[in-house]
């Protein structure tokens, strides 16, 4: 499960990738925007042989490419699969390390218009959101980006967007939603655009399909919503009329009693997977909100050992997340990536990065970059591309989100 890696030297703090552009916050207070797709097409391609360019494109520009149905059929051909794996291995061996000078003509550097340093960042509907203890700030994505507007005064530690809602984890102040639409009962005025949905503390928030998940270490909650839509005059699209809490679940209770203990360190949920990590194992519940019977929406599908994959037997979990290619666990000593192809027969499908990162980020909600993991270290950003998930059975996966 060795990834392909592009390394960019520099002192960075955070990164985002969206619609062909890579955005990097520097420690010096700049916001650098790189024409990522163009860079990959031209500069990287000039460094690698022609036979690898196709793989490089899929690996760094279009992560959805190999998930398409026709490729699934092609992966059944063992000969093709062998060639695919051979090309991947060849690309892994190419040194892809760059300095910012190599990006000349491919990037712009501007003064960071947001509060800095921040807690989290997000790009959604061509708008950049940055949050910190002092509030939430936004700026439309364009070449200037001279000013960011503050949309909320509350301190926010983590954000996640879906269905024109930005969910805001506000620490002790619970979880709030910021509505992008402006023609509903809940958001008639700008002031009404933020609404508290979960009272319990939260430092992690994400979407499990249309449901909102939040957690504060071992405590987590899933909120399902009911909404009504109606057709607007002269508009073909139905518009949301309201969005209200329907059901709320305490996440720890969704794991069977024998799995729940005081040793639970962290619970997190994204899309179809709800994970609970204790000192040794990650327990996994699969979420299927389309099932009408509430009790059958959550099914425990198994567990896997994580502790023995790290270099330290006592390190605490600091953070975690899920991508299609696997699970990520951050400890105070490094990052553990457990690949979606990890199982008892393939117990080497993991990667332990034995260095404390400054920051790291997955893009599970993006269109084209779901296979990327960005890890920022003291003097570089490492952009990892994982490509082992395409030929796995998505419906039966224990590790990683299902496509």
């Amino acid at each position, binding site marked *: 499960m060795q990834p392909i890696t592009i390394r960019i030297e520099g002192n960075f703090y955070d990164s985002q990738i969206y619609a062909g552009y890579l955005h990097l916050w520097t*420690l010096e207070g700049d916001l650098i925007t790189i024409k990522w797709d163009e860079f990959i097409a031209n500069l990287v391609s000039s460094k690698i042989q022609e036979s690898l360019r196709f793989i490089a494109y899929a690996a760094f520009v279009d992560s959805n490419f190999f998930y398409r149905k026709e490729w699934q059929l092609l992966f059944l051909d063992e000969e093709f699969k062998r060639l695919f794996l051979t090309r991947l291995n060849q690309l892994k061996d190419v040194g892809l390390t760059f300095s910012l000078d190599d990006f000349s003509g491919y990037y712009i550097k501007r003064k960071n218009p947001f509060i800095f340093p921040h807690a989290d960042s997000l790009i959604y509907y061509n708008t950049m959101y940055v949050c910190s203890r002092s509030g939430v700030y936004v700026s439309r994505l364009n070449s200037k980006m001279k000013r960011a507007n503050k949309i909320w005064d509350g301190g926010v530690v983590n954000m996640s967007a879906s269905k024109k809602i930005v969910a805001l984890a*506000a620490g*002790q*102040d619970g979880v709030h939603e910021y509505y992008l639409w402006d023609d509903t009962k809940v958001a008639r005025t700008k002031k009404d655009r933020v609404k508290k949905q979960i009272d319990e503390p939260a430092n992690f928030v994400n979407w499990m399909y249309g449901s909102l998940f939040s957690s504060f270490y071992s405590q987590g909650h899933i909120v399902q919503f009911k909404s009504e839509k109606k057709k607007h005059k002269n508009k073909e699209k139905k518009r949301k009329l309201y969005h209200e809490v329907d059901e709320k679940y305490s996440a720890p209770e969704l794991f069977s009693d024998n799995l729940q203990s005081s040793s639970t360190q962290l619970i997190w949920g994204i899309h179809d997977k709800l994970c609970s990590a204790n000192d040794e194992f990650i327990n996994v519940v699969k979420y299927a909100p389309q099932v009408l019977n509430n009790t059958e929406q959550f099914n425990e599908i198994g567990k896997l050992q994580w502790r023995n994959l790290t270099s330290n037997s006592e390190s605490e979990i600091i953070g975690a997340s899920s991508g299609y290619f696997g699970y990520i666990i951050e400890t105070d000593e490094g990052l553990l990536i457990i690949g979606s192809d990890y199982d008892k027969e393939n117990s080497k499908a993991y990667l332990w990065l034995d260095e404390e990162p400054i920051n790291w980020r997955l893009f599970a909600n993006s269109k084209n970059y779901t296979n990327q993991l960005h890890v920022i270290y003291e003097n570089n950003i490492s952009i990892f591309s994982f490509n082992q998930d395409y030929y796995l059975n998505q419906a039966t996966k224990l590790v990683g989100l299902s496509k």
Partner: protein
Amino acid sequence: MVAINKEETLTDGTKYIFYPPHRNGNPKKSQWTISQLEELDCFKTGYKLCLSIIGKVYIYWGVHVNNGSITHLGDAINNSQSKELFIAKFVDSTKRNEWHGYPADHVNNYPQDVPDEHVLKHWNSKGLIRTAAMRKILGGKKCNL
């Protein structure tokens, strides 16, 4: 041990009050582990720094520096996700230049106990707080020094 009063008045008239609940083992309050003299020194340094960076406000921040490195200055309450605390929060709640302080818990009391971004950046630029630690503090995550 040097005897110390319940409060100290600095040369510019600023008053610092040693708040007992953060030293008496109260399970609901974070507890100082540094001496009162060190607490006062932490306030003086933090006051001067924050005044220059963020101006005249009623919440300031401090760290306890020993031999050029930040060391822990307090313990979190029992059921906190944090254990050892290393940032002090100072409050002028009466707005009459009468301050008291306590060890801040950036994990359990987010965002109230998270220092001002500019102050954190200053500590980072002086090499007192690692960039990774700065990100964890702002992200409300557990953090070692």
